[in-house]
């Protein structure tokens, strides 16, 4: 489903606004339209189906409660719901015992690969594809640092440990990486 086309974005605003007025059918439709995407994100962050399901429940309960205060001039609906999902998942992740830490298969190596092809294949949204194009301008480990910050909520200290780099290096990577993304995406 191409969720980010203009029509879809307007449909999501409509569904969210009607949910905010107490329309349960609109809320069910909003869930239908968005839950697979948000559940995919929850799985990517939490790596466990039971935890991702728990997170997604919390997310939609929160969306229902906050729908009345959503303003269309603010972040797009999908950005708003994505941010809620990410925050809830990262909170859950931080509450887990340390054994839940990343194992090798989950270390976001796809972002450190020279070839972002597999990521591009998974990405149908044209704006996200543009972001991937901009990410190609970064060094592989720099990309990985940004992905680990976003998907695992890692702070500079954790990134330094995970990537076996001095903390100053990691900070510089992130700062310069964000500057590159700013000028690349700002030019789009």
């Amino acid at each position, binding site marked *: 489903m191409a969720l*980010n086309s203009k029509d879809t974005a307007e449909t999501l605003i409509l569904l969210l606004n009607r949910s905010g007025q107490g329309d349960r059918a609109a809320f069910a439709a909003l869930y239908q339209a968005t839950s697979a995407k948000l559940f995919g994100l929850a799985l990517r962050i939490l790596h466990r189906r039971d935890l991702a399901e728990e997170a997604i429940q919390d997310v939609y309960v929160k969306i229902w409660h906050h729908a009345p205060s959503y303003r269309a001039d603010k972040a797009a609906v999908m950005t708003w719901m994505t941010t809620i999902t990410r925050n809830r998942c990262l909170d859950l992740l931080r509450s887990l015992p340390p054994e839940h830490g990343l194992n090798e298969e989950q270390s976001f190596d796809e972002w450190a690969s020279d070839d972002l092809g597999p990521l591009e294949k998974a990405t149908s949204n044209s704006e996200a594809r543009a972001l991937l194009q901009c990410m190609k301008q970064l060094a592989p480990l720099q990309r990985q640092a940004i992905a680990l910050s976003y998907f695992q909520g890692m702070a500079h200290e954790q990134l330094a440990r995970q990537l076996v780099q001095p903390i100053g290096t990691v900070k510089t990577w*992130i700062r310069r990486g*964000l500057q590159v993304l700013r000028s690349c995406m700002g030019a789009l």
Partner: protein
Amino acid sequence: MRYDKPELRDMLAAKYALGTLRGAARLRFEHLVLQREDWQNCTDWWLMRVSLLADTVVAVKPASSVWRDIDRRLFHASSRTRHWWRTLALGFSAVSALLLVLLINPALNPLQPPVQQTATIGTHIALLADASAQPGWLLTLSEAQSQQQELRVASLPSLQVQADKAYELWLLPADESAPVSIGLLPQQGKASLSIKPELAAQLLTGALAVSVEPPGGSPSGQPTGAVLYQGKINVI
């Protein structure tokens, strides 16, 4: 730090959106965003771009039990669509009513000193109690004499003192709109909070809640910490 440089604003917004801006710097940033539209716009720009990372993830349809659970939590639970603090408030009201009876009856009163003083001052009082019915403060709303009403607050011996934290008092309006901060509560002794006239009427119909906040109060204008005490203004 100088906050008027666009490069600084941009970098802080980017780090905020990515999540690497932490601690006090993050709180300061959130505070600035609330005050300045250009900061808000810049942050929205970054949140939207950074959130595109989520689009590189494969979508997975959740099991149908997930929707059933959401539906049950929202529409079939006894608390229905109430916020958690309102659900709490319901449970607390019976407890406060009982304590109120104890307080205004001197023969039964275990908390002699604060009550004798306050009972003569106002006709509207509230007792804020915690989940185990231990009262933390007694509030007295003075009769309107001028534009401003005054809420007198006396902390009680059974209050759980929180070192390095503040207790903030919130009005939960009866129309279920967002909580409104009334002010910080003293952890010992007494204080007096002035109440704007437009809030005074709502104070009588709404519920009261006290959350634990960083020193100086909630940085966001909404409760951020645990709600430990609840109560409601009663007429005596």
